[in-house]
């Protein structure tokens, strides 16, 4: 089983030098902590910042400088501010290479649901619908099952959809999965997790071929 930090650490391996990356709230945010020293990655925050730095020291704290999670942040050399229209221009035109976000459900066609639970207070989709409709590459970071123990990897979404056919890779506490035309293709297993565990926790079409390696940290 992977911890949240390990999920983030595994996703960080997907980063390539020169990537522009948008990280969602929650586990995705943690990915920033595991960017390899050997590469240069620029974080885009959709509220209008490219080149997001770490949290500020007390001295650096600036109410006018926040990220899309409304957290105070800092800039780095080469950072740039812009308005929300320009921010989503970048996103919709495919200039953001990778988006990492959480999900409530993903199905084996790559559809994602992550913004609304009928009957519960709806907070809104924020920038998620724009991101999933346009990012070059989308990785979902989430727990494999929900709090009731039910699979979040389905053949058919039960919740309102956020975007269609957009998820290409999923990293959960159990494994790494690629979403391909054949379904959920199991690529790697978390340490101590067996194929049967993944099978039992996956409701959608799971494809298992050959020996599945264990994620090494």
């Amino acid at each position, binding site marked *: 089983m992977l911890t949240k930090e390990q999920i983030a650490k595994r996703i960080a391996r997907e980063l390539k030098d020169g990537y522009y990356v948008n990280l969602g709230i929650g586990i995705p945010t943690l990915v920033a902590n595991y960017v390899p020293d050997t590469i240069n990655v620029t974080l885009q*925050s*959709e*509220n*209008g*910042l490219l080149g997001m730095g*770490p*949290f*500020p*020291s*007390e001295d650096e*704290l*600036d*109410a*006018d*400088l*926040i*990220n*899309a*999670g*409304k*957290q*105070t*942040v800092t*800039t780095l050399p080469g950072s740039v*501010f*812009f*308005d*929300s*229209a320009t*921010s*989503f221009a970048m*996103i*919709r035109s495919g200039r953001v290479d990778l988006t990492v976000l959480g999900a409530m459900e993903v199905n084996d066609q790559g*559809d994602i649901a992550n913004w609304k639970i009928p009957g519960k*207070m*709806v*907070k*809104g*989709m*924020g*920038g*998620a*619908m*724009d991101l999933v*409709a*346009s990012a070059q590459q989308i990785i979902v970071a989430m727990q494999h099952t929900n709090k009731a123990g039910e699979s979040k990897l389905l053949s058919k979404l039960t919740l*309102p*959809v*956020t*975007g*269609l056919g957009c998820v290409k890779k999923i990293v959960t506490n159990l494994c790494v999965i690629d979403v391909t035309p054949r379904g959920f293709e199991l690529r790697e297993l978390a340490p101590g997790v067996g194929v049967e565990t993944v099978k039992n926790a996956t409701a959608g079409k799971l494809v298992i071929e050959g020996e599945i390696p264990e994620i090494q940290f």
Partner: protein
Amino acid sequence: MHKVVQNADEAIRGIQDGSTLMLGGFGLCGIPENCISALVKSGVKNLTCISNNAGVDDFGIGLLLQSKQVKKMISSYVGENAEFERQLLTGELEVELLPQGTLAERCRAAGAGIPAFFTPAGYGTEIAEGKETREFHDKQYIMETAFESDYAIVKAWKGDTDGNLIYKATARNFNPMMAMAGKITIAEVEELVEPGELDPNFIHTPSIFVNRIFQGTHYEKRIEQRTIR
């Protein structure tokens, strides 16, 4: 140009029950604090507010919700706000949620004289219901229209008396597009200067978009998520 008004009370003159307002800001960052206070004081009701977020219970647009002045919110994320939730559940408040990029672009379109455009955001979701869809280059898009707003109320860092504006850091967010989009645009600034004091090469909102401007006071600039290294 006679754009300078003395204070927020004067700036919001003409806003009536039932008016549609755009309000700049992302969370509590870059919101027009003075004008929101003046709106609460004015008691104007049944407002439709176009704003990315709805503030928190006791700050930002939350103040207008507390005093039940808002009929409808058009936002991308309404977040944590107990009074908001209560009004929504009782049916006192109407909410229209839409993708953040679509919200930004519908403001920009209004300010650019573009009545409608196509975006991929929300295709295949309930956001697309009732909207025209179309394929371009093997990808599906939905048609979205420009907002119509009686007033846009924005907050800038510095402005000149002609109405030119500059914003600071991520307090820029939706403010520039909304400034373009209001039938009447009201700008409150932290510092009001004379024409010529701002570098013409580095102005974010050209004066032509601004109808009224004043220097605000007592900015609280509340931080929603105070995160320290």
